[in-house]
């Protein structure tokens, strides 16, 4: 089980990465957990996942499964945080 600190770290990293991927000049604290990944503010698509995965792995010092995003549906930042948390747990 991941600790609360881990969840906070994952949340911060995921938000930093989706901000970069959406080419926004914002801070992680500016992004709500329920913000849509593809909406008025964020523009994240699956073709950018390689870059996002390697950034997340480096930031969090984890190895995520290659098929992390395959067959899953996620619409909000929160969905992505949960997927990464689950992937990080599996990899441990």
């Amino acid at each position, binding site marked *: 089980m991941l600790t609360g600190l881990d969840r906070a770290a994952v949340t911060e990293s995921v938000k930093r*990465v989706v901000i*970069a*991927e*959406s*080419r*926004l*000049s*914002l801070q992680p604290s*500016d992004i709500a957990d329920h913000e849509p990944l593809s909406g*008025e*503010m964020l*523009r994240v*698509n*699956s*073709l*950018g996942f*390689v*870059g*996002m*995965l*390697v*950034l997340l*792995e*480096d930031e969090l010092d984890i190895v995520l499964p*290659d098929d992390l995003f*395959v*067959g899953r*549906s996620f619409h909000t930042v929160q969905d992505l945080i949960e997927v990464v948390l689950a992937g990080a747990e599996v990899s441990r």
Partner: protein
Amino acid sequence: MSEHIDDILASARAAVAAAPPTGDPAYARYCHELAALLAEHWPTVLKANADDVAHAEQRGLPPVLLDRLRLTDAHLDQLRRLTATVHAELAEVTAPGPGVPIGDWGVRRRAPKPLGVVFMVFEARPTVTVEGALLPVAVGNAVLLRGGKEIARTNAALAAVAREALEAAGLPAHLVTVLDDPDRRQLRALLKRPDAVDVLVPRGSPSLIDYCRGASSIPVIASGGGVNHVYVHRSADLTLAAEAALDSKLPEPTACNTAELMLVDESVAAGFVAEVVAAAERDGRPVTVRLDARVPRPEGEGEGHCWRVEALQEHDFGREFLDATIGVYPVAGLDEAVAHIRRYGSAHTEGVIAADTAVAEEFTRRVDAAAIVVNGSLRLHDGPTLGLGSEISISTGRMHVRGPVTLGALITHSWVVEARGTLRSSVPAPRS
């Protein structure tokens, strides 16, 4: 894995060493063979591509992304034109420099040399695979191509074509290597090999480019994305400004040289927006204008128009909309426009529309970007359009190359010094 990577890198390095010098006729033959073999094997390439697209569709990729993966006959025409253009540019780009006398003792000249081993990392655009197998290689480099796994089958088919073209041209087959291992550990391992890779060219998502820039000490030629602005001065012809805005965005909304935010002098902002929507309406060009609350909304807003207006938000500053959206933000004048660009711009392409030539000159003096367009469309910023030649990307870096990354940017040079027996001790010291 490390042994495999060592083998890949050793083969690429050996291919550079075995290849004829930059400018050799074999490279022109390669362009010709590549075009011919692409045409010959295009049905096979399309079959592989159809498999990739079907697989991606099964995985639930949305139509707009499937379009990025899909190859058509139009792409073949485009790629054949590119090979012809590169072929035509080779002689001039790779010609040795003229001999320049040095005092009365010698002559110096530049001799073109390849950069060496080029590592291109990109995502799911199969045309990039061909561009990568063409431009760097045509001037004597070896290239390692790592594309997205979504186009793995297409890339394998294209790799076979490139290898066949190299062999037909009499060039080492390992000048082109398509990496087929999707494991990210391979990517990381290659990024840690500045001893074996001479230059890194990432093309793709911002995260990928950020990662390559941050994780590797290999010199990077990269576009930092296009957070581009156009400043409209009160002296501007607003009809031209509106046309420039629409042309800077609509034909290719996701390109890196499109306009995102129009910074418009307050006194003409409403008139500018009226011209934009009128031009969009006249030609039926769908556009969304994100408008600052201080600018009155245009008349006639509502159903039945190809344009619509939304509220500009602060988070829109410094962003690429990646669709047919243009922001409009009123500014007090040149100073505020320049300050905004310095804070939020990505130093890719900036523009000014002004009839007052002093304003345009001041803008070009104070704004720093890879290209600054005066009284025109930002999309003029590409190598062929500027007469600079074929390009593999547009660089926002400050070293080696800025702007279109043309064939000339994919070579370096040696200084050849014809010394005619001169010794350093016999040359007078330069005056300080």
